[in-house]
């Protein structure tokens, strides 16, 4: 019998809950092909990621789906799924758009609700132990990804952007034990010195234009095209990329060992106070764990949907500068208001710093990417000519 699959749509959803229920969390990334089913439910000028998920659910038939209230398109997604697939467990997770204490309390209640509906829907019981274990597992995976990202960010990247993003995708979709194994193998195989320069097992391509990638959902084939065109992806801020695992308080020291249940992982916690820190993982009760999850997820590097008075862009620009990126590719899915509004803001800030940026709009299909090849090539060439 296959594992029960429960899809999730947004990196603000704590997949730990799904895992703790003995189910397999799978990030839904859509079919990335032209849609058939979605056309009957939502108009063509709605987010192609959301449309693609409708078709994916239709073909994969997961046992359950958690959709976050990310944006208007995501709200229509839950409606469409409920209407079309009445036999599939579907739940909307209300994710706050602000990050103060009121929002954390509200999010705590949403996580509690998630636990209740999953217990009812799948006839399971989520114990504090199972939840702690799930947190350790997800944390382990995210820390491994963090290490992979560090390889990308090096002065001479020790890994290609395409390979790195495939690791992130695998971590979000595969069975977690298998994902951890594969991540460790891959990272081990790269034989990177902790200090000093990377051993260039992958072609580091020194001297090539360094590109930072920003956007919502970006098919990995776009990254391949960038790298085939001569660019090096040195950093990203993507929904199926670093946004999955980057958190302000994520400790960097975890060695990637399979969690033994000790409390070391919590030592970097700054988000929910001394209580948790002092208690350690072994002693804390379920309320503390839930509060921890709520605080931790809301402390994630904010995406475009979160309330923002410019901080997001200041931080993004700092990241881009710190990586010495020669240029930025802003990839946005068509009809995604969240990111369409972001482009002029970022463009303005980067212009002032003399960092070139281009906007690529995509329909989340392979066909669309080929059309962008020429523009990407010209952009990389332009960046290259500026380096001389």
């Amino acid at each position, binding site marked *: 019998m296959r594992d029960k699959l429960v899809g999730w749509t947004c990196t603000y959803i704590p997949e730990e809950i799904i895992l703790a229920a003995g189910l397999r969390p799978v990030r839904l990334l859509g079919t990335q092909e032209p849609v058939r089913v979605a056309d009957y439910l*939502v*108009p063509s000028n709605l987010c192609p990621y959301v449309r693609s998920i409708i078709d994916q659910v239709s073909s994969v038939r997961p046992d359950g789906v958690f959709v976050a209230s990310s944006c208007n*398109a995501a709200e229509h997604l839950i409606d469409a799924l409920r209407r079309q697939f009445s036999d599939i467990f579907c739940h909307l997770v209300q994710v706050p758009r602000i990050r103060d204490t*009121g929002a954390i309390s509200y999010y705590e209640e949403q996580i509690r609700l998630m636990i209740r509906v999953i217990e009812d829907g799948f006839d399971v019981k989520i114990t504090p132990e199972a939840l702690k274990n799930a947190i350790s597992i997800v944390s382990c995976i995210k820390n491994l990804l963090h290490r992979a990202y560090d390889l990308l960010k090096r002065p001479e990247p020790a890994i290609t952007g395409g390979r790195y993003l495939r690791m992130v995708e695998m971590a979000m979709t595969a069975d977690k034990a298998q994902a951890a194994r594969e991540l460790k193998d891959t990272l081990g195989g790269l034989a990177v010195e902790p200090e000093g320069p990377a051993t260039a097992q992958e072609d580091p391509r020194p001297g090539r234009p360094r590109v930072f990638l920003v956007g919502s959902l970006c098919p990995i084939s776009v990254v391949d095209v960038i790298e085939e065109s001569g660019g090096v992806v040195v950093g990203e801020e993507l929904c199926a990329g670093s946004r999955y695992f980057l958190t302000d308080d994520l400790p960097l020291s975890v060695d990637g060992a399979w969690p033994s249940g000790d409390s070391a992982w919590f030592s970097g916690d700054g988000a929910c106070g001394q209580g948790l820190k002092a208690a350690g993982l072994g002693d804390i009760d379920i309320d503390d764990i839930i509060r921890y999850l709520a605080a931790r997820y809301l402390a994630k590097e904010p995406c475009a949907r979160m*309330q923002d008075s410019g901080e997001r862009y200041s931080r993004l620009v700092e990241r881009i500068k710190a990586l010495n990126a020669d240029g930025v590719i802003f990839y946005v899915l068509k009809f995604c208001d969240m990111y369409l509004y972001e482009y002029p803001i970022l463009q303005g800030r980067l212009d002032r710093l003399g960092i070139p940026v281009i906007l690529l709009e995509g329909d989340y299909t392979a066909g669309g990417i080929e059309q962008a090849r020429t523009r990407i090539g010209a952009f990389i060439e332009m960046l290259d000519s500026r380096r001389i």
Partner: protein
Amino acid sequence: MVGPPLDDFGLNLTKSVVRHALRTRAVSALGRSILAMRRNAFSLRSTQAVAEFALEETVRAFNGKAPTAWTSAFAPSELLRGMGLTLFSPEAASAVLSAFGLATQMLGVAEAHGHSRDTCTFHRAAMGAHIEGIFPRPDLLVAASHLCDGAPRLFCSIREVMAHREEDGPHRKAGGKDRKAEGNGADSGSPVDAPPSYPPFYLLDIPWGDTGRDAVRYVASQLESLFHDLAQRFRLPGDLERVKEAIRLSNEARKWAVAANELKRLSPCPVTAREVADYVYVLFIGFGSEEAVRIYRTLYEEASARAHRSGGQGVEERCRILWLHLRPFYAGRLWTYMEETLGARIVFDEFSNIYWDELDPDKPFESLAVKALSHPGHGPIERRARTVLRLAEEYHVDGVIHFSHWGCRQSSGGALMIKDYLKEHGVPMLILDGDCIDRRNYAEGQAMTRLEGFVEMLA
């Protein structure tokens, strides 16, 4: 938004004329003379009062005696009015620009600044107008996350434009000078690298489809923090009594609006949506003011006088229509054609629906939270669809038309599912694609042909 579109009257207003007029004290005189010229264009006194209200509010926003808050549709006007702020709705103002024939230019300005042609034109035109300096300068920005994503994103961009505008001078009013102006919800102590003179941006996070206790508490606490933060930042009285008074006025306006709506059930309908389309201005920023009470009371009186006069005679009502979402605000013949040529009367529109219960003045934050959370469009599609079905029944309509405004994910995104739901309940629905603001995105001939077919089928 000031009655029928101005270019219907051969008024050729250029961008520079409007900008100059609005930037000087001449705005009031200009507006009043336009309204006087167009008096005959208003079939209802109350509709003219709406135009006057919009004008006076805009004048106040330019005069800057009180801080001006830009607000998104459905932000809690009662609270902000009760605090003595002047309100400006960029979304409603975009409709005015469209009626003035200026929207296309403003859209072009925003597009030249990197704004996508796929975003909602209510917001994009506002962005262009802001870049051009046509709109009054905001002292603060308050967006509610319901109904749509566009407004919060627009406000974030507006703030950015102001923060980095080279010629941006110091804040022109007292308050807000001495502190950085982040708005709400951010981590404390986050770095803000722009000058402190630009306006704070508050986002009210309204959970989607959750009307439970936790959601009410969450929204109410945001409203309460907003109240205290604004009182401190702008040195406002912080007097809750005035907010309570605004809530009483809101209830009073609500009462007359409900009474006027009751009359729309009659056949023939005494007041059709064509005449009250501009009331969205009042819906967006008017509740909590005395003007709104006057406007809705007058509307009720006028509708009731007409109902008595006509006694069911003299108006052809081949079929009755419920209109969902908004209509094109630029010059066009769509609604006139529908009503006068096809005899299809739009007896009710979604924006006239008074969806909230009476507010409790003694629980201002909580009742405003409940109002926000109860919006039928901000929750599962069944909630909106059920509301539409109820309205269709109450107003005895033969069919429903959804105007699918191009950039609107919120409303248009759900149109197919609503159509499906209504079909299950035997109510026909037509989806008309177009754009409320941008005439470049709308083929009137095609829309009319589709309308004809639909009305034929209904009649």
